[in-house]
């Protein structure tokens, strides 16, 4: 058996197992992956993302698959070696909860404390967003524009302001992403009195055809009004371009996005999943 690192050159071998949406992240600076091969046949894999959080530098495993426990042990052994070099404080893994206990036991074997929980991610259809109460008002402030209607300089300056304020949304590598990473028509921005970007509502089109929110931020005082305005523009532009059953992935990854989701989509519920967490110790440290 051999464990090899995933790269842009070999990720296509794994995408059929991981799904194209996860696979497209290999190549980004904060994403890593591994695959296990036996006789050159795929037997398992891991894809994770490094993030700076309030608790320190953490690893979030976004995809895991192993044919058996031996493969799992080999994958996590290589994974642990790699993250040790990055000074990662803890690892979190989420997998869809299924009836079988096997995957949960495999994660426990790997040292994770595992609990069934509700996913942060919910998938809604465009038609549900069209029915939100805020869409009864269709007027868009002239301060709110699609990012396709602003200059690259304005966009980059807006990103710099967000990053300087500690706001990166779901993109740890936000500063490195080009404007083309986001849908130009439906992603929105909020302009301040000087015509500079002071708010962003950025959407990325996943390879599967689903849209995902990557950043939702406003740095102005009138945050609520600005965010609702950008959301309105997003829905109106989506209605012009996409069918009502177009799927949008919302990741309620922090309190602000959770509250917004609860307000706009009170019926939204994330699928049950197993979430595992473990503290990463440096070599030689004892877990006391």
């Amino acid at each position, binding site marked *: 058996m051999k464990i090899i690192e995933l790269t842009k050159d070999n990720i296509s071998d794994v995408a059929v197992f991981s799904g194209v949406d996860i696979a497209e992240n290999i190549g980004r600076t904060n994403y890593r992956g591994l695959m296990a091969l036996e006789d050159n046949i795929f037997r398992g894999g891991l894809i994770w993302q490094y993030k700076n959080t309030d608790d320190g530098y953490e690893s979030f495993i976004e995809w895991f698959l192993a044919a058996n426990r031996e493969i799992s042990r080999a994958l996590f052994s290589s994974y642990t070696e790699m993250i040790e070099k990055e000074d990662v404080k803890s690892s979190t893994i989420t997998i869809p909860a299924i009836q079988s206990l096997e995957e949960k036991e495999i994660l426990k074997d790997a040292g994770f404390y595992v609990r069934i929980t509700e996913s942060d991610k919910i998938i809604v259809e465009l038609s549900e967003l069209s029915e939100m109460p805020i869409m009864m008002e269709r007027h868009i402030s002239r301060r709110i524009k699609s990012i396709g209607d602003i200059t690259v300089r304005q966009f980059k300056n807006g990103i710099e302001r967000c990053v300087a304020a500690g706001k990166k949304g779901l993109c740890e590598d936000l500063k490195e992403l080009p404007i083309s990473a986001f849908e130009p028509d439906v992603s929105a921005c909020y302009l301040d009195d000087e015509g500079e970007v002071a708010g962003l509502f950025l959407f990325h089109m996943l390879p599967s055809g689903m849209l995902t929110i990557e950043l939702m931020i406003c740095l102005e005082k009138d945050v609520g009004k600005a965010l609702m305005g950008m959301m309105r523009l997003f829905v109106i532009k989506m209605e012009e371009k996409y069918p009502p059953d177009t799927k949008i992935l919302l990741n309620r990854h922090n309190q602000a996005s959770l509250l917004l989701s609860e307000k706009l989509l*009170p019926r939204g519920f994330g699928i049950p999943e197993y979430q595992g967490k473990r503290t990463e110790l440096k070599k030689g440290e004892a877990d006391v």
Partner: protein
Amino acid sequence: MSDIKKEIVGSAMNIVLGKEVDSKTAPELQEIVMSSVGDVSEVNFDCTNLVYLTSAGLRVLLLALQEMDDKGGSMTLKNVSPYIKSIFKMTGFLNILTIID
């Protein structure tokens, strides 16, 4: 007056759900479940009367499942209508619930 009924039989908690488990009734259900969940190894929900279930209700079920899952206990649901089953299917709950026909 609540239409939720609870009965403890040995190490099992049997709960008969009311017509609706939504944001109004879910807090009471949660209180009823959580007040005894530490003392049992089995939670059984009777859904005969249940016709309406929202995300608030799903969260209570998930809480109960979390507690049972943590201690290696069990949780079942019986007499689940096709409509409620469709909600479980849409939300992914069908994969993790033990539904007795």
